[in-house]
């Protein structure tokens, strides 16, 4: 099969088992999705649903004793079998990463310019001068003001938004095929959040890289990704075009997330709808649908086995036995 015929990223039945105080526990329980070149996919869900673990698995950065099953293929190459050295060649080269907290992502004792030059020297074999010239071009590309001076700045001399631009410059240095952004703007205020996300959109359009955006913020998803996957209990429970997921809200958990969200224009004092209970710990995960204990539609069938996939529409899937029973709110 040629590279063009398959998606850039194909994740099939990905499982991750983590060692815990209660013995090994399944944290990802069969995650499958595909991402085409240049496309955008959002992973949304609450803490503990498996979003960040999915990202770590895609970067080969899982904890040492984690067990991985299933398949991750990047442009046809199987990644789950790679050793450390092979992962290190891939990371920062074909896969770029942007994390939530730009201060912890940057090394406080290295100058900005050197940190951007590092992947270029490592993966592209550029010499010091060439890497520095390229670092300057990248800083200008992410529109860091006074880029030339900033090459020699330390991370602590930059604001949060400026640091995140530097992190993006590092992620883009080698022209990756895939950018993983895990809550890239959660630590920033709304204005900076928009600037950084708009910058990511623009860079993606210019370079043709694909974007996997992880966020708990539904509004951010609506504004920046074409496809949306809702995760719960280590599985994707609903997946489709972002607009379709927003309008149909097939899974009861998706409905719960939407109802709990404060929206501009709600009357002062409105009480928000909440989802009863809380996300189960890994060792408390029920055998059937992980959401059953919090779901108003759940019955004995839901608790027996994980619900199979159902098609809401073409390209829009849900894992729920009762999704059609209630109209969207």
């Amino acid at each position: 099969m040629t590279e063009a015929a398959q998606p850039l990223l194909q994740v099939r039945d990905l499982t991750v088992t983590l060692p815990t105080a209660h013995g090994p526990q399944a944290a990802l329980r069969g995650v499958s999705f595909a991402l085409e070149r240049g496309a955008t996919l959002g992973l949304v869900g609450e803490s503990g649903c498996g979003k960040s673990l999915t990202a770590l698995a895609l970067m080969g950065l899982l904890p040492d004793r984690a067990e991985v099953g299933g398949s991750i293929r990047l442009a046809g190459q199987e990644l789950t079998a790679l050793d450390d050295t092979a992962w290190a060649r891939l990371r920062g080269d074909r896969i770029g990463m942007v994390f939530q907290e730009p201060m912890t992502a940057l090394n406080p004792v290295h100058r900005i310019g050197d940190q951007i030059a590092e992947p270029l020297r490592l993966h592209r074999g550029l010499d010091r001068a060439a890497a520095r010239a390229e670092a300057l071009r990248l800083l200008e590309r992410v529109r860091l003001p006074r880029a030339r001076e900033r090459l020699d700045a330390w991370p602590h001399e930059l604001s949060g938004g400026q640091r995140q631009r530097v992190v993006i410059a590092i992620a883009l240095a080698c022209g990756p095929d895939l950018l993983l952004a895990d809550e890239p703007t959660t630590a920033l205020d709304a204005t900076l959040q928009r600037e950084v996300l708009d910058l990511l959109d623009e860079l993606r359009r210019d370079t043709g890289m694909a974007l996997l955006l992880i966020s708990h913020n539904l509004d951010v998803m609506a504004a920046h990704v074409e496809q949306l996957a809702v995760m719960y209990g280590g599985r994707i429970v609903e997946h489709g075009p972002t607009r379709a997921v927003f309008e149909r809200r097939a899974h009861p958990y998706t409905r719960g997330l939407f109802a709990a969200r404060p929206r501009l224009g709600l009357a002062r004092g409105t009480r928000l709808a909440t989802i009863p209970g809380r996300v189960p710990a890994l060792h408390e995960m029920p055998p059937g649908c992980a959401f059953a204990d919090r779901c108003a539609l759940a019955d004995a069938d839901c608790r027996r086995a994980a619900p199979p996939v159902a098609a809401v529409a073409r390209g829009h899937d849900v894992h729920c036995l009762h999704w059609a029973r209630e109209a969207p709110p």
Partner: protein
Amino acid sequence: MTAPLLQVRGLGKRYPLPRPHPFAARESVDALADVSFTLEAGRTLGVVGESGSGKSTLARLVMALEPPSAGTVLLDGRDLHALAAPALRQARRDFQMVFQDPYASLDPRRTVWRTVAEPLEALAALGRPERRERAAAMLEAVGLNPAADLDKYPHEFSGGQRQRIAIARALVTQPRLIVADEPVSALDVSVQAQVLNLMQDLQDRFGLAYLFISHDLAVVDLVCDDLLVLQHGRVVEHGATDAVLRAPAQAYTRSLLEAVPRPLWQHPR
């Protein structure tokens, strides 16, 4: 006529900057300048603005955690920054604070009851059994289970439960004003909804006033009667929440509203 609960007049805070070189004159920055407002009992005033606009500086001055460079903070007519240290310690029972990060704001080595009862230690009259009893009542008020939770440690709780514990601690002295600095921005959406509902229920029940700092306009729209928009430490707009968000008078307020993400299908780029 009685005085408003909180009256802030001409409040300013100037921080010195390091000298650029040894012979240079010392420069300074106004983190906050000429801020005035009043907050009545039982009402919520939202403070919005970008990072660096002075929101948290305002919170620290209202909480009397540092002295202002100019202006006064009157709580029930008393000038907090003019009080001597012992009097201020006593006065603190009337105003308490809730912070953004419930992982950082609770002491991991203290049991929940000691954390919640801590503000009572300044009130010397209360013995240990009575402090424990009040902590239990507050845990109940925030929806936790005192019988099971009093002797647990923070790591045994989720983020949302920790924020409930932080709120119980703020309420234990029966304050009249709570300063909440981004109280829900570190929480997941469903937990955020629970905490916002709780804060509104507690306001109705205890007649609390909130000074509510947030950069999330949807959240302030939900919980605030009035809004104060800060930019570079100055008030650029101040009025009823509805008026400020539906008919903003200032370009800066409009730019904050424009930063709210809009769906791709409504706003093609």
